[in-house]
């Protein structure tokens, strides 16, 4: 399909703007003005609308079909959330407004949203305080690591190492490194699929700044030893960071704060139903226990005695600004609405059905594919296509085969500790009928592995394009449509 630039027709325009109602003799001196042609498109509104509508039709979203992408929690995003975020009282609000004198009074609605969402997240996770500022999950991890560094610096601790399980998301070591730490992987017990406690105990020492944990892990297994891990860490004044990527599985059934977790982040776009937007924006609020509260980024939203809200910048130990303002406010708004729609019972139903759907799929699929860790799973489970790979059909071929069956593929080749991994997370909003269709498709593919492997090697064949040449993409690096 042509690029938007290739559709351009000189002289066409797609927007009507008001005539200038002031004298327009102002000019920018030549030395400061643009000399090159502003080479943007020239199109009508209809040209543009048709172009992007056509692009949208080449996309697969949750609204298109089942999206069992492990570790991404692709649940249904209620439509009311979009309506709430689009209310002009929120969408048109300038972020500098509350920073004017008495400006807080002009933004009481927005400050209330921030304050109330922080409070709800505290209750849901058992943490003592939250900041909504982190702009994504990885940004939350980085903020958390910065808080940990501030804590240790303030106490005069010299610590340099963060311990991270080998099954963890790649962002964990990357975020710790970005905050200036070196990282050491902790092995997973190959029998049970949970963190090797003996290894961990031997690794924690006075250099350990923190342990980063994802629980349930990326294998979809809950580690009941988390309380003990926190004890071990705290003995050495190391802190426990909880990656809340998989919080959806334990809503109303486990609170990291109750287990001694010191810092955590929540992915609002996973657990609290805000849409993923083709890869963002999300939001990654960070919760802390009270001893880390002083280090939280500024500003903080405070409720005054008269029940009005204000922003507090006067926090001497704060790590400072990590975002320009108060976080991805529109995303926070949606998450707040999502929590209000569900209530406590609703959130427990979310986790209950997320876990039920995953176990139902796992039980049906383990008869056809290898399940390396055969135990009750939480919200997701990991299959291995190791045997199929020996027969020449790799995890990627199974994934592409699923596309031709009308499904979005699971996460492939992650976690790294499972060979030929296929990580499946159905989420709570999928119906039994959908799951049954998926099971049937996975069984058909298993049959094709034996009978018609080439149909999988050549998959997908129902999509606008086949498998792209990634080597060519990386070598040629055609990243923009520019005149040579």
């Amino acid at each position, binding site marked *: 399909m042509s690029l938007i630039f290739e559709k351009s027709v000189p002289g066409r325009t797609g927007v009507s703007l008001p005539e200038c109602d002031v004298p327009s003799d102002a000019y920018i001196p030549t030395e400061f003005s643009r000399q090159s042609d502003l080479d943007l498109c020239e199109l009508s509104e209809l040209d543009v609308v048709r172009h992007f509508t056509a692009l949208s039709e080449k996309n697969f979203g949750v609204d298109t079909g089942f999206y069992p992408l492990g570790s991404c929690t692709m649940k249904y995003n209620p439509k009311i959330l979009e309506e709430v975020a689009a209310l002009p009282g929120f969408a048109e609000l300038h972020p500098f407004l509350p920073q004017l004198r008495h400006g807080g009074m002009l933004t009481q609605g927005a400050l209330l949203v921030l304050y109330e969402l922080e409070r709800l997240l505290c209750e849901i996770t058992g943490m003592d305080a939250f900041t909504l500022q982190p702009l994504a999950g990885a940004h939350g991890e980085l903020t958390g690591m910065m808080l940990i560094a501030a804590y240790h610096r303030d106490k005069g601790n010299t610590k340099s190492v963060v311990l991270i399980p080998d099954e963890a998301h790649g962002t964990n070591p990357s975020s710790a490194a970005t905050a200036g730490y070196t990282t050491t992987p902790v092995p997973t017990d190959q029998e049970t699929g949970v963190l090797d406690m003996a290894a961990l105990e031997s690794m924690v020492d006075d250099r350990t700044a923190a342990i980063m944990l994802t629980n349930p892990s990326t294998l979809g297994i809950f580690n009941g030893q988390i309380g003990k891990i926190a004890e071990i860490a705290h003995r050495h004044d190391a802190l426990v960071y909880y990656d809340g990527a998989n919080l959806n599985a334990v809503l109303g059934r486990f609170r990291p704060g109750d287990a001694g977790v010191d810092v955590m982040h929540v992915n609002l776009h996973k657990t609290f139903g805000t849409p993923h937007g083709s890869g963002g924006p999300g939001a990654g609020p960070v919760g802390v226990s009270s001893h880390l509260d002083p280090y939280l980024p500024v500003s903080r939203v405070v409720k005054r005695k008269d029940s009005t809200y204000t922003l507090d910048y006067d926090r001497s130990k704060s790590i400072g600004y990590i975002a320009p303002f108060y976080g991805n406010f529109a995303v926070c708004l949606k998450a707040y609405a999502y929590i209000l729609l569900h209530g406590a019972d609703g959130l427990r139903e979310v986790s209950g059905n997320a876990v039920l759907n995953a176990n139902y799929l796992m039980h049906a699929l383990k008869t056809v594919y290898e399940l390396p860790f055969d135990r009750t799973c939480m919200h997701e489970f990991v299959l291995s296509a190791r045997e199929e790979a020996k027969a020449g059909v790799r995890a990627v071929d199974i994934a592409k085969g699923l596309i031709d069956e009308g499904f979005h593929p699971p996460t492939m080749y992650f976690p790294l500790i499972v060979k030929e991994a296929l990580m499946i997370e159905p989420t709570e909003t999928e119906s039994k009928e959908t799951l049954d269709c998926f099971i049937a498709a996975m069984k058909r593919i298993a049959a094709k592995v034996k009978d018609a492997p080439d149909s999988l090697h050549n998959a997908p064949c129902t999509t606008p394009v086949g498998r792209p040449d*990634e*080597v060519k993409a*990386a070598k040629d690096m055609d990243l923009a449509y520019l005149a040579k």
Partner: protein
Amino acid sequence: MTPNDRKYTKTHEWIKMDGEVAVVGITDHAQENLGDVTFVELPEVGANVDKGDECAEIESVKAASDIYAPVAGEVAEVNEALEDAPELVNESPYEKGWIFKLKSIDSSELDALLDSAGYESVVEEEEE
């Protein structure tokens, strides 16, 4: 398959003396595991490196790996052909796909490295 005329590291580099300089590259096993190489970031000529320093980086579609200096020395030359043809690392890992040359090395450091049989057993262990 592993040439006998050079030494190896556990991190899959090979090093071969060529007169006064030592040539460094990655092994056939390493290129096989990386898959199609798409880019090689070469070290700066004249840079002094210690044994074990990360001095080049090699990228494929699925991985990015550091290349470590097998011995200490000064970078004498880099394989500029890789800038336009990184696939040489796949096609000819032991000859045309060399990565850089080191001078001013202490050739006794080479003795501590693996010979071809030693390297092959490292690879076998890894694959288990």
